[in-house]
């Protein structure tokens, strides 16, 4: 390749922006670990959790649910025609969870002590203990589920064979662990009935989080397949392009059902909480916006798209559902948390907190791009036809 060509392939807009964000993030990261959380965040004693928890952790985990949802659909529920979707979904799941843990390293005060809850002193009464244990184990499961692609790339056939044999076991593990921690993230807020707005607080929070994680997972898979179609078309073989159509309609139908179920349990929870009177306050309208605009509306769109065989509508519904999940998680961790306090005592993120969040996400995108370009994710490896 001539120098000119190398330059051209390196200096794409994506690479330039990614490089800028990562370069900008490094000094903030250094500040965080030399001057403390106080120097780079707006956290305080009343608002101890900011966007690193509300966005990076809560939202990140929900959006990384595509891995277990797709693996379960294909490996356990026998929907083989979605087979081509498993690898990309597992990859995003694995990267998503890795990023969540990476972001946590910035947020917790003494990250090097993260193994303590398991090795030194187990706080078994804590919901967070459960979250931590499950996320840790699930990250391992995802790593194993993802490893065949890397092993094919490296040409390690024997190890790959062993791992592939474990597929079913790993998938079952993955679903159990995901059910536990997706719901537990909601359960973490069960302890704050006095701080979370009553329209969002419910003893069904774990159920809400679990069900919505399925919708999030399905939508993310549709969304990603759209994105990789656009950006990595040359990496996809005919098999995967064909499968991407199946996924759009099949997952779209499933998402319509799950969102309908989610809407139903939300309304059920609302009825049990008996806070109808609050529906017509400022927070009430915000709640209605979330419930109708970001649960019922995408549900309707999905159903419409499936009925009319219109992939465009389904793709838009997927995007809208993802936005809705982000909104929901931010409502619980941020907009509706400490709702009773005056604005002066509430939290707004520091720009450096946003900087670190972007930094983390960008690293994820760069790694994703690298893996998709190098490894058999969006196409089959010539040596292993029909196997995965």
């Amino acid at each position, binding site marked *: 390749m001539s120098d000119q060509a190398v330059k051209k392939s390196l200096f794409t807009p994506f690479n330039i922006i990614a490089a800028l964000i990562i370069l900008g993030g490094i000094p903030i990261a250094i500040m965080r*670990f030399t001057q*403390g959380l106080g120097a780079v965040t707006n956290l305080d*004693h*009343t608002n101890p959790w900011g966007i690193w928890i509300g966005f990076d952790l809560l939202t990140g985990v929900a959006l990384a649910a595509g891995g277990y949802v797709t693996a379960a659909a294909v490996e356990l529920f026998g929907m083989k025609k979605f087979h081509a979707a498993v690898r990309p979904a597992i990859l995003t799941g694995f990267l998503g969870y890795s990023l969540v843990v990476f972001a946590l390293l910035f947020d917790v*005060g003494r990250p090097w002590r993260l193994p303590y809850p398991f090795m030194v002193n*187990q706080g078994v009464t804590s*919901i967070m203990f459960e979250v931590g244990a499950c996320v840790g184990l699930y990250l391992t499961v995802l790593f194993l589920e993802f490893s065949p692609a890397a092993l094919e790339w490296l040409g390690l056939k024997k190890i790959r064979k062993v791992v592939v044999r474990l597929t079913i076991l790993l998938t079952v593990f993955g679903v159990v662990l995901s059910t*536990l921690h997706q719901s537990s993230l909601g359960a973490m807020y069960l*302890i704050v009935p006095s701080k979370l707005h009553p329209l969002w607080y419910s003893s069904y929070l774990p159920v809400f989080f679990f069900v919505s994680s399925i919708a999030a997972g399905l939508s993310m898979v549709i969304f990603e397949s759209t994105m990789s179609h656009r950006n990595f078309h040359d990496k996809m073989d005919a098999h995967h392009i064909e499968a991407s159509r199946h996924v759009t309609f099949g997952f779209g139908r499933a998402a319509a059902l799950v969102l309908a179920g989610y809407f139903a349990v939300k309304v059920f929870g609302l009825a049990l909480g*008996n806070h109808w009177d609050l529906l017509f306050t400022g927070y009430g309208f915000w709640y209605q916006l979330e419930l109708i605009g970001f649960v019922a509306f995408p549900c309707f769109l999905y159903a419409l798209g499936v009925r009319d065989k219109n992939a465009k509508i389904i793709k838009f519904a997927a995007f809208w559902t993802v936005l809705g999940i982000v909104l929901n998680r931010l409502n619980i961790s941020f907009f509706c948390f400490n709702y009773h306090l005056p604005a002066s005592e509430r939290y707004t993120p520091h720009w450096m907190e946003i900087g670190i969040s972007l930094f983390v996400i960008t690293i994820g995108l760069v790694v994703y791009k690298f893996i998709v370009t190098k490894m058999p994710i969006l196409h089959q490896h010539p040596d292993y036809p029909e196997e995965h």
Partner: protein
Amino acid sequence: MSTSRRSFLKWVAGAGIAVAVPKSVQAHDHFEGYADSYGVLHDASLCIGCRSCEAACHEVNDLPAPEKPFDDKSVLNTIRRTDDTNYTVVNKYKEGPPPKNGVFRKQQCNHCKEPACASACFVGAFTKSPEGAVVYDESVCVGCRYCLIACPFNVPTYTYDDALTPKVMKCTMCLPRVKEGKLPGCVEACPMEALTFGKREDLITIAKERMRKHPDRYINHIYGENEVGGTNWLYISEEPFEELGMRTDLGITPAPELTSGALAMVPVIIGMWPVLLGGIYVINRRKDIIAKKEKEDAVAEMKAVTTAEGEEKVKKAKEQALKQQGFAVKREVKKALEEAAKAKDENQNGEEAK
């Protein structure tokens, strides 16, 4: 919490026991604080906002001296909360006539009987000591700050500016001093006896006695007797508690009860999901196998049919061939005969011509 929801949780918990819940998960259901534990009664009607308790607290706990000295009354003009340099603060909530010149209340950790902070911490950094104090162990703390989130009174604080050894800061009820038989620093320092240290049960008796003696002076409620399951620090007041910046909507459900239902679900999910998923997998696999077999059978049959058809064709072809062969033979024979006849004729003709 409505009754129906509570009974749902009970039911869920019951289902949990059915699949053998480890005792540790259930244990806190029975723990309701130590019977003989100590506490402090704060009589806000006696508090004059002198901040002697704050000064004493700083001294006994080696906390850094504040910017403005403790006798600077201007500090009382803003409402403060506990922070990483103050385990306790006294606020002025209302103006009032001399000699008190206002309505004040002291705040610090309430040393809950079933503490939310302890229930929330995933590394078990908080313990409820038999003396009644809720104490924090810095040596295991990871710094997730879930305890700050969980505390309904917004008590614990975090040293955000410490880069390498950040920690949670909160009132210890002066446990080290209590163990030595001394009074907590703030209690000892209070010139008005607005703070009384003693066995929690005795404090409740004292509070009730004061209310009985001066029914017109006190609100008929001991704050902390039942709030969030009961606290070891108790309050009585002449003003409604809301007006002293205290939340009266916290309910009486202790923190562990809020999460016990969800925790009890864990073994249910671990026990049931694999069985269910395994079942679904097996059914789908069977379906697949049957489908595969059906497909194979169909293919075999098709093959058989085609072979049969093929054989027939060959036979026909052979017959055809035979037939055609037959024709050919006949034709040849005919030809030969004809030729022979011709030859004969020619011979005859030739002989005749000779």
